[in-house]
């Protein structure tokens, strides 16, 4: 059953402009910081400047005496009343998880951690008074950087006795999904090729546009929290679980939320402190972070060292892949924490038929900002590693990088295909996506130009990078999550209400924060129920309205939440059929439903769904055996992930004199199954691409040796703007491989661009200068790193020892600027 045959075609597939955009773009809407309640007090946080220190004393007297200050509170004032920040995914039973108080009373473990909160009548007065809080610290040695943490000589949390939190292992020979990777590597050492590399996933900052903000209203029986969060339902659960307030007394609202990218998939100290203060003072409170606070204390993303061994035969057919990750958790194990790198565990084998595979992930604690999900979460890291390796393998074999992929990928006839990581890919067509991308990109012409430039010894060299990605998204089948010890399920809930006037209210448990669900979900309902697009209202983000839900992340909203919606609509139609048959005095079997009407086959009689809605409102005439409602709800638990894929091709120009890199062309052909709204998809792909390109070229969170975030503002944390990017060719395969495990046939697209683009760009940069002896450049590929890589051998740019290429323990080969403040 494919969705293409079934769908009514009117709204789905249409470039609808997003109905939510006017209010979101003008800001005339309910951003959390726009909310003002009677008698509301404002909070300012006092944060530790030290990465690791004991708190010896906190003198709050001067702050308390300041104008309009109502209270100054510390961790000691609260004790257990504060609750705790939780880790919902202990990746191993013996994971070391330091306790995480929202406001520790005795010791801080990263620079930016909150030690006191000032409550005042205005935000400005709170901020002024925060400066008067006098905290005495006894500074402790801080451990920063993965390699230092692994040594265990300085400890992030001395009580734990180690910085190593958990080691998570998957081995295809143990799992029975493939062979023994060590044997494959041994074999390749004698008669094949072994590519060994160490890649660094730098630390990134999600940098959502709307800073985090929280308002808590303790007035009345129920406590209400508004928060700029991606996860109102999970937040409500965690508040109940850790602060002792019954869940039924908690209402969490995520009003309009301005972006998240994973960065608002968190239960934060700021939320817990605001909660505790409001309860303590019985007054509504608001806290909105500054951008500086956001950069230093909202969770960071990525930060891994990847040690990789790829074994292949002489022709470049891969025989095994061994992956060892060391991943920096920062100071605490965050909500998803070590689960993020583990989400990559199933994706290092990507679109390929690797016969053997081993994955290990060692998570470590350091005295730096905690890390968690960032767009792609685990899959960008995996995709980067394997797509970089495949280019290296192509270079080693001496064939085109597309050829090496073709030698190894799953062909379209082979679906469904069970991978060496144990996932069943239901559908895909890598050949079709690659052919289309290649043609539009002008692959052959660009390769020819590259050859000419090399031959001429041009100052500006051209490189072409390939990334043929896939990902697992639509988090997730609940049983699978259970088997991974994840603390929640992956189902989603929807309900559909027919109002008396025939308008439709749709409630979803997903929680949009800029994705355009209101538009896309309206299109689905409009088609499926046969009502006008304008008549559909999508409600979300309020636990009192959407009582069941698991929120928005992991490219799940459409593929899981959309499917729940479809099922709810189908139930509405079923119920309505009963009523229609009664009112039309016809057998249910003789009724057809289409265009929002039941018609009696062979007659001109019929009744519209809106009329039926009115009929349930009046209740004047309905069957004896019918409950008086055609509203319905559904909970959908996916049976599998879904696996979008695509071929991304990138051409980069490298100025060999300065190391400057410029994007020349970027073409991607993504196969994401059926598309509900091409305009929204284009937006997701464009934004996703830029975020991935930014990892390749610009973004990096850097702490200095003392643990201070050096990239503490957007002057130093370089985000691109439209002026830094080019127009991308965003394509889709003409005959998509529809998802076979949901009725809409859709696959996730929220993270695809970010997952795919990073290796395409770095592959292109390396390809441009490979003939000059370069086979790697650490991200972000700054002009300086590129220049040093090019001139590493000619004495023009002295190469620090640490930048020499090699593959030895404790000797990073990745950062040509190590020791100069640019590496961490």
């Amino acid at each position, binding site marked *: 059953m494919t969705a293409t045959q079934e769908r009514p075609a009117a709204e789905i597939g249409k470039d609808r402009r997003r109905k939510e955009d006017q209010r979101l773009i003008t800001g005339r809407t309910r951003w959390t910081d726009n909310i003002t309640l009677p008698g509301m007090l404002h909070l300012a946080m006092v944060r530790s400047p030290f990465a690791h220190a004991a708190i010896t004393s906190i003198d709050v007297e001067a702050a308390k005496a300041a104008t309009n200050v109502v209270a100054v509170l510390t961790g000691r004032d609260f004790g257990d009343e504060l609750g705790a920040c939780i880790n919902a995914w202990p990746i191993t039973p013996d994971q070391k998880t330091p306790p995480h108080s929202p406001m520790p009373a005795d010791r801080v473990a990263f620079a930016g951690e909150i030690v006191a909160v000032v409550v005042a009548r205005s*935000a*400005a007065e709170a*901020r*002024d008074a925060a*400066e008067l809080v006098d905290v005495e610290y006894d500074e402790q040695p801080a451990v920063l950087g993965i390699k230092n943490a692994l040594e265990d000589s300085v400890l992030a949390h001395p009580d734990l006795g180690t910085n190593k939190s958990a080691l998570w292992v998957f081995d295809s020979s143990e799992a029975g999904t493939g062979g023994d990777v060590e044997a494959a590597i041994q074999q390749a050492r004698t008669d094949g090729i072994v590519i060994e590399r160490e890649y660094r996933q730098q630390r990134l900052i999600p940098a959502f546009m709307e800073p985090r903000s929280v308002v808590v209203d303790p007035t009345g029986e129920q406590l209400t929290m508004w928060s700029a969060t991606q996860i109102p339902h999970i937040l409500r659960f965690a508040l109940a679980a850790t602060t002792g307030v019954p869940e039924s007394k908690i209402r969490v609202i995520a009003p309009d939320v301005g972006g998240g990218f994973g960065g608002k998939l968190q239960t934060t100290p700021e939320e817990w402190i605001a909660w505790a203060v409001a309860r303590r003072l019985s007054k509504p409170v608001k806290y909105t972070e*500054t*951008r*500086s606070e956001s950069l230093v204390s909202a969770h960071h993303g990525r930060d891994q060292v990847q040690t990789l061994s790829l074994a292949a035969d002489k022709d470049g057919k891969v025989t095994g892949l061994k992956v060892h990750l060391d991943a920096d958790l920062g100071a605490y194990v965050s909500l998803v924490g070590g689960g993020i790198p583990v989400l990559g565990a199933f994706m290092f084998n990507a679109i390929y038929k690797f016969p053997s595979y081993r994955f290990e992930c060692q998570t470590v604690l350091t005295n730096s900002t905690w890390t968690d999900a960032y767009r792609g979460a685990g899959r960008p890291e995996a995709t980067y590693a394997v797509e970089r390796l495949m280019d290296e393998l192509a270079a080693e074999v001496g064939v085109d990088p597309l050829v090496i992929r073709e030698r190894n990928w799953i062909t379209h006839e082979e679906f469904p295909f069970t991978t060496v990581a144990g996932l069943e890919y239901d559908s895909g067509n890598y050949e079709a996506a690659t052919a289309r991308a290649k043609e539009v990109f002008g692959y052959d012409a660009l390769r020819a130009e590259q050859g000419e430039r090399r031959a001429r010894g041009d100052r500006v060299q051209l490189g072409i990078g390939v990334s043929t990605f896939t990902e697992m998204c639509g988090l997730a089948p609940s049983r699978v999550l259970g088997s991974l010890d994840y603390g929640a399920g992956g189902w989603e809930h929807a309900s559909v209400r027919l109002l008396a006037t025939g308008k439709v209210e749709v409630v979803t448990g997903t929680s949009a924060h800029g994705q355009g669900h209101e538009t896309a979900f309206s299109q689905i309902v409009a088609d499926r129920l046969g009502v006008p697009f304008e008549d559909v209202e999508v409600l979300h983000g309020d636990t009192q309205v959407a009582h069941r839900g698991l929120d928005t992340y992991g490219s799940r909203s459409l593929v899981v939440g959309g499917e729940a919606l479809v099922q709810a609509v189908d139930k509405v139609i079923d119920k309505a059929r009963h009523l229609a048959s009664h009112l039309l005095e016809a057998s249910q079997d003789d009724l057809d439903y289409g265009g929002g009407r039941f018609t009696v086959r062979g007659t001109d009689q019929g009744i519209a769904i809106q009329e039926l809605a009115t009929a349930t409102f009046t209740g004047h005439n309905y069957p004896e055996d019918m409950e008086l409602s055609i509203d319905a709800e559904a909970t959908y638990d996916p049976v599998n992930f879904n696996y979008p894929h695509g071929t991304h091709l990138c051409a980069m120009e490298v100025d060999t*004199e*300065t190391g*400057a890199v410029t994007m020349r062309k970027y073409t991607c052909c993504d196969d994401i199954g059926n598309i509900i709204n091409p305009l929204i998809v284009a937006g997701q792909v464009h934004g996703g691409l830029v975020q991935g390109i930014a990892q390749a*070229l*610009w973004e*990096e969170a*850097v702490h200095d040796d003392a643990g201070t975030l*050096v*990239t503490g*503002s957007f*002057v*130093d944390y*370089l*985000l*691109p*703007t439209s*002026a*830094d990017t080019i127009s991308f060719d965003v394509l889709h395969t003409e005959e998509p491989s529809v998802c076979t495990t949901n009725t809409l046939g859709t696959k996730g697209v929220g993270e695809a661009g970010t997952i795919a683009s990073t290796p395409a760009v770095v592959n292109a940069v390396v390809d441009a200068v490979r003939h000059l002896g370069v086979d790697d450049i650490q991200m972000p590929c*700054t*002009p*300086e790193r590129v*220049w*040093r890589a090019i001139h590493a051998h000619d004495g*023009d*740019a*002295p190469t620090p020892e640490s930048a020499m290429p090699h593959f030895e323990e404790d000797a990073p080969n990745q950062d040509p*600027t190590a020791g*100069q*403040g*640019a590496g961490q």
Partner: protein
Amino acid sequence: MIPVKFDYLAPTSVEEALAALGEHGDEAKIMAGGQSLLPVLRMRLNAPEVVIDLGGIDSLRGIRDDGDAIVIGAMTTHHDVREHALVREHALLISKAVAEVADSQIRHRGTFGGALAHADPAGDLGAPALALGAQFVIAGPGGSRTVEADDFFVDLFETAIGEDEILTEVRIPKHTGWGAHYEKFVRVAHQWPIVAVAATVRGSIDEARVGLTNMGSTPLRARATEAALAGASATEDGVREASQLAAEGTNPPTDLNGASDYRKHLARVLTGRAVLKAAGA
């Protein structure tokens, strides 16, 4: 981000502003376009008690012809400087450099005098002003004085402007008919330069002036390069030797965007490019 509380004064004449400055001394801070000052206040890196906004003083705004120089009022915005015909005709280098400052929003607020008074070594206007031999007119309690470009930039964020003084205008000697180019090296478009080179040449090449941005604690002039360029031909080979001298005597910083030796290398490469483009080659 909320600054510490301050009083706000908006004088309408230079005399009034100077009086206010005299009264409040080092408790006061001048505000021009606010594009550098406000971020500093909001991040609480500085907390003056009084902010004296020059925005209401009309006489500080505008560009005029003054014989052998053009005169740019301190409060003239980057945008107005960029658009002005006099600047394009007689100080093309300034037009080119100012077009590279920040983005359009900031260019509509930030001012020529504010940028120079701020003296950020990574600011785009110091090197061109230096290269063109600008003169800085500074008003103080005892009247006005004029400071040569070579003496104006003292150190990081430090100029010859005294605490009780105000920069009122900048005189730029006319370089009519000189070719010019500002070569700014950045990673993203809206960034301060990692290194930039301001070059202006007469003929191709009879005479050259070359200023360097972010190659030390103040803008610098590449004098050895200038000397070597006199009489050089405007070809890659012709300028190579001269541009190799560009980093002489510089002491550029090391930071996230580049180590000192890399910046020196950039200065040499960019100087060659800037000079050739200035010469129209």
